[in-house]
């Protein structure tokens, strides 16, 4: 178990470093950073001044190491736009995005697990068809469009929920539902396939032969095993949700990390962008790492010999 843990940690670390290098490269290589900073009306000498001022004339490797060292201390530089240290700005916005992501995950699980189980018990029944249709439609809906439609319906026509902005729990309902809709098909198919496979296995037959009640067989014995692959996928989806929340936050004017990222890109505030990319990537890495560990907890065969 320890060896597993250590191996995973090393890989996670390497991935984090690689991502930081890539995001650094992206910023400095896709276009002339100095020019973007100086603005469209800058002259050549203005651009040169900007370049020197921000140390952009040094070799890339040097710039990277400098940035990386500071980043490890939590110093991601200063925001060009807000003239404040980057890290605290991000940390302040983080709870919004986390709330959104976790709520979306919760909604997705609450909807997809029962649907998936029912579809597995009665394959090819109307419930299975319904689940499949929900699945197919969910994957085709553009998330931002779905959000707008919800806004129109629940915010304007029914006036049940606030249309946009950040605040109490009611501001998170529509964004969370919109974000969850994309994960539901994947989860549901996974649970359905997993349950169908598990329900056909020998130990379920043994459980029934012991006279256990149907609920016990389904939940204690079957679901417990079928849910194992779901854990990894759920963690990955949460990671994606955190990264992809940018669109939802933009649609609903929810001031989280994604929204900050969008704003920063629009106004060329690159230290913030670089930090956000790295932080989101780290979240994803940590989540997949946790998923692996959780897998080991759930499946004794991984944990013990």
């Amino acid at each position, binding site marked *: 178990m320890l060896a597993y843990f250590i191996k995973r940690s090393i890989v996670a670390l390497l991935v984090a470093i690689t991502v930081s290098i890539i995001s650094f490269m992206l910023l400095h290589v896709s276009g002339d950073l100095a020019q973007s900073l100086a603005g469209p009306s800058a002259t050549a000498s203005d651009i040169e001044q900007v370049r020197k001022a921000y140390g952009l004339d040094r070799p890339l490797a040097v710039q990277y190491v400098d940035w990386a060292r500071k980043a490890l201390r939590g110093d991601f530089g200063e925001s060009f736009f807000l003239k404040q240290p980057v890290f605290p700005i991000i940390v302040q916005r983080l709870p919004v995005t986390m709330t959104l992501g976790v709520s979306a995950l919760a909604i997705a699980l609450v909807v997809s697990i029962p649907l998936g189980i029912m579809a597995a018990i009665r394959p090819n029944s109307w419930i299975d068809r319904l689940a499949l249709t929900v699945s197919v439609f969910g994957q085709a809906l553009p998330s931002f469009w779905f959000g707008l439609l919800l806004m129109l319906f629940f915010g304007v026509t029914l006036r049940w929920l606030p249309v946009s902005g950040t605040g109490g729990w009611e501001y998170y309902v529509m964004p969370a539902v919109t974000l969850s809709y994309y994960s539901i098909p994947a989860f549901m198919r996974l649970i359905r396939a997993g349950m169908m496979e598990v329900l056909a*296995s*020998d*130990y379920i*037959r*043994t*459980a*029934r*032969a*012991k*006279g*256990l*009640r149907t609920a*016990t067989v389904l939940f204690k*014995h079957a679901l*417990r*095993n079928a849910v194992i692959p779901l854990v990894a996928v759920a963690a990955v989806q949460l990671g994606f949700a955190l990264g992809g929340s940018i669109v939802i936050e933009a649609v609903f004017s929810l001031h989280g990390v994604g929204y900050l990222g969008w704003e920063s890109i629009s106004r060329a505030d690159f230290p913030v962008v670089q930090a956000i990319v790295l932080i989101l990537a780290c979240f994803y890495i940590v989540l997949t790492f946790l998923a692996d560990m959780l897998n080991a907890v*759930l*499946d*004794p*065969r991984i944990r*013990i*010999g």
Partner: protein
Amino acid sequence: MTALLEVDRLSVEIPLTIGTLRPVRGVSFEVARGETLCIVGESGCGKSLTSLAIMDLLPRRARRSAARLVFDGVDLTSLPERRMADLRGNRMAMIFQEPMTSLNPAYTIGNQLEEALLRHRKVPRAEARERAVFLLEKCGITAAGERLSQYPHQLSGGIRQRVMIAMALMCGPKLIIADEPTTALDVTIQAQILHLLASLQREFDMAVILITHDLGVVARIADRVAVMYAGEVVETGTAAEIFARPLHPYTEGLLRCIPVPGRTRRGEHLGSIPGMVPSLIGTLEGCAFRNRCPHAFADCAARAVPLAETAVGRSYRCLLPPEARAAGALEAATS
């Protein structure tokens, strides 16, 4: 004394793309209290499905029907599922063929053992645990207390099968159905498990239905035997009767296939039964064995062959009386 289990004309049907499969066709037998009945037959003869049908554990698409299916005075055909679940694992229990996959990998064997008792009896967990330890030791597992906290994947196949047996015994059932419990195990372990089953049966006064394709197992452990072929019972009798004087050509053929110490001469060819099992899809005309039977004649194809009883508990399903068959064989041997 009434039989513990009465099975009268039990059938199983499974609808397929190409027609209706009938793997169990009118099977009848009885099991008395405390006796061991062996159901013998080759793969595909319907013996496993028969046992699943008795426990009502058939796959969803399969349909069961029976003229009579009575266990310990309870009519199983009209029993709602909830009541059937109360019987399963409680008064009738089942042991399966593949010990490697029959236990849930996510829970300790202690948990799975205790669960079998706690489902049917309102006793404190500690008592369930004690019974589990007691039965594991009865089944020949050492250090039973520590084993309880182990997971199935940590145990060998032989140990897992012993755990399955202990699990079946948790509620003190009157009937155990063992579906080829030793087939997946090493030969040396096989003998041990059979020995264990026999001694447990005596000690707890249970009836055992043992399903097998191995005549050696039958010789060791059976009180009575039912031979199945193509979904039907073709011969019944005590083990001694079947081995000494088989009444059905199929049983005869089976016995010729195995070497018997003292009877088979050195250098003698072992027999084989030519041909193949007929398709069980749709309805079968006449005797199912006729295309492989050396004694078949015109009538065998014409009508279904009824089970003929020569004595109580001794029957066979053949149009030819055994004397006629022996005479025919003698004729063939001397011509």
